[in-house]
């Protein structure tokens, strides 16, 4: 860009060169012509002719000079205009996109400006500077708002999770009279948690919680159904026994909950929403069908676009409908495929495909107490109980106490081999007395030259 500067300086200088050439030429030519004409005219009118011709010649010279100067100036200005046009085009096409991209990537206004070629024109510099300041400010505001939202959502998520756990404990503790109210609170808290999860997903924060074990499909569906307000209108038809990997379970539940919420809110309150689960070779297909209004082709394509693989554009968010944007984010994160189609029931059907990578098979033990074993926290290392029956090995470890099961005597329930007991207490109490004596007698034997061993006990004292 610095190469432009001398050219510009040259161009800005008034173009007088041609005028300086043309003016003497015109003076010489017109002077010559005048002299020749005056010399040719008879002497009587010579003075008059000379004056007239002189005036005409001067006029001609001046006119020619001005004309040449004007033409030169026009050409010069046209060149400058073209050059400025090119500059502005370069600014718009190259410089500004780079600048905005740098600001979006988190650079400050000054850093971003330092990294791009500086335009020679002072006005363009001012435009760039103002633009960088404003865009940078906008980016900072956006980032601050996003992080504030994400932080608040995270706190609400944590609160909702602990409230749900507390409510579950209360539901266990309290009697039937309170249960109905507790369930209602539970339901409201679960919905609040879903809202917080939605905000967290849209702001790019982490999702609500992580499950440490695969979650079976029935629980996934129930977890999804439990988060929407009209959960009683959802009918689940599932015989699937697969499970969803723990890290993706929350996302899948949340996406399904949003889709079910859409289905229940866009169908008449008297109609049910049906959810079908089908295991296929590529994963699990879940279909959510409602009997509401058929979506128009434009609405279908809009919905499809919202859940497609394109990254989330926050400008497409409307204030009230976040559901599909959330589903889109979750689908991109976990590789779910979501597609919309008109439902055979008259409304809209949503087909969600959970890829095979997220699906695991749960070994279903026919024993009825297998789920009890699953409740033991995995982090607690199982103490080896050697000969104890396998059934008692799980829950007994929790508290270290034997536990009697039905049809079993307490003696059978207690571990057959007790944990390694400390040495008998008698040996321990005798040790301080006998030990110094034994050592002393050994010392005495050695000094005597290996005589017969004497009993070490009493004479040493």
């Amino acid at each position: 860009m610095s190469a432009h500067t001398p050219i510009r300086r040259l161009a800005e200088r008034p173009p007088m060169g041609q005028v300086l050439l043309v003016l003497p030429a015109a003076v010489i030519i017109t002077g010559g012509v005048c002299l020749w004409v005056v010399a040719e005219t008879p002497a009587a009118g010579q003075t008059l002719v000379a004056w007239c011709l002189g005036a005409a010649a001067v006029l001609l010279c001046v006119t020619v000079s001005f004309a040449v100067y004007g033409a030169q100036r026009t050409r010069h200005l046209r060149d400058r205009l073209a050059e400025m046009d090119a500059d502005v085009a370069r600014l718009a096409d190259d410089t500004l996109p780079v600048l905005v991209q740098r600001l979006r990537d988190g650079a400050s206004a000054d850093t971003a400006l330092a990294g791009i070629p500086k335009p020679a024109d002072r006005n363009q510099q001012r435009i760039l500077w103002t633009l960088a300041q404003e865009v940078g400010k906008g980016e900072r505001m956006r980032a601050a708002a996003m992080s504030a939202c994400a932080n608040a959502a995270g706190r609400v998520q944590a609160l909702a999770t602990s409230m749900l756990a507390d409510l579950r404990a209360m539901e266990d503790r309290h009697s039937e009279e309170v249960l109905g109210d507790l369930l209602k609170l539970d339901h409201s808290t679960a919905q609040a948690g879903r809202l917080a999860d939605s905000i967290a997903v849209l702001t790019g924060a982490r999702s609500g919680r992580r499950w440490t074990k695969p979650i079976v499909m029935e629980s996934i569906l129930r977890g999804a159904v439990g988060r929407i307000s009209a959960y009683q209108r959802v009918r689940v038809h599932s015989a699937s026994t697969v499970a969803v990997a723990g890290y993706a379970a929350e996302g899948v539940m949340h996406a399904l909950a949003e889709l079910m919420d859409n289905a229940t809110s866009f169908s008449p309150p008297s109609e049910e929403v049906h959810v079908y689960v089908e295991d296929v070779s590529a994963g699990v297909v879940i279909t959510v069908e409602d009997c509401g209004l058929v979506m128009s082709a434009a609405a279908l394509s809009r919905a499809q676009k919202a859940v497609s693989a394109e990254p989330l554009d926050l400008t497409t968010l409307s204030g009230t409908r976040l559901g599909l944007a959330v589903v889109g984010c979750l689908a991109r994160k976990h590789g779910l495929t979501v597609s919309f189609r008109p439902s055979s029931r008259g409304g809209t059907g949503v087909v969600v495909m959970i890829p095979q990578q997220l699906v695991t098979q749960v070994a279903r033990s026919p024993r009825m107490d297998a789920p009890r074993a699953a409740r033991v926290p995995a982090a607690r290392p199982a103490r080896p109980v050697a000969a104890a029956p396998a059934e008692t090995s799980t829950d007994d470890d929790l508290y270290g106490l034997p536990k009697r099961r039905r049809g079993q005597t307490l003696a059978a329930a207690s571990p057959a081999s007790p944990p390694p007991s400390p040495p008998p207490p008698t040996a321990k109490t005798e040790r301080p007395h006998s030990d110094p004596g034994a050592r002393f007698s050994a010392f005495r034997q050695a000094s005597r030259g290996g005589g017969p061993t004497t009993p070490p006990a009493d004479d040493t004292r």
Partner: protein
Amino acid sequence: MTSWRVDSENPDRLYTVTGGRSRADENSLDVVSLIVSECEPTPGMQSEHVRILRMCHRPTAVVEISAELGLPVSVVRILLCDLLDTGRITARHPPSAPAKAQLPDLEILKQVLVGLQKL
């Protein structure tokens, strides 16, 4: 308490297990009623129903089912009512407590107590 629960909890909420009900329609089921399953679970059943049917091959009390499933008794009672309505289980009520006349006299019991304390 909370942290342990959060780690080991299932995503099912109780209202989704009961379908929104919080009270059993039938009050005949006591906590000590013995439940016996009458048929094998069929695919597509609710998992709690399946587990109850598997568990109750031998007569099992309602409280024991509740402990095994890890669900409150009132919720288990709702589930059992569903199964009762479809005839998949039968409930046997425990013999009622012996009549008051058959119990030993209160005075004798007191004397036994005093005698025991003197030992």
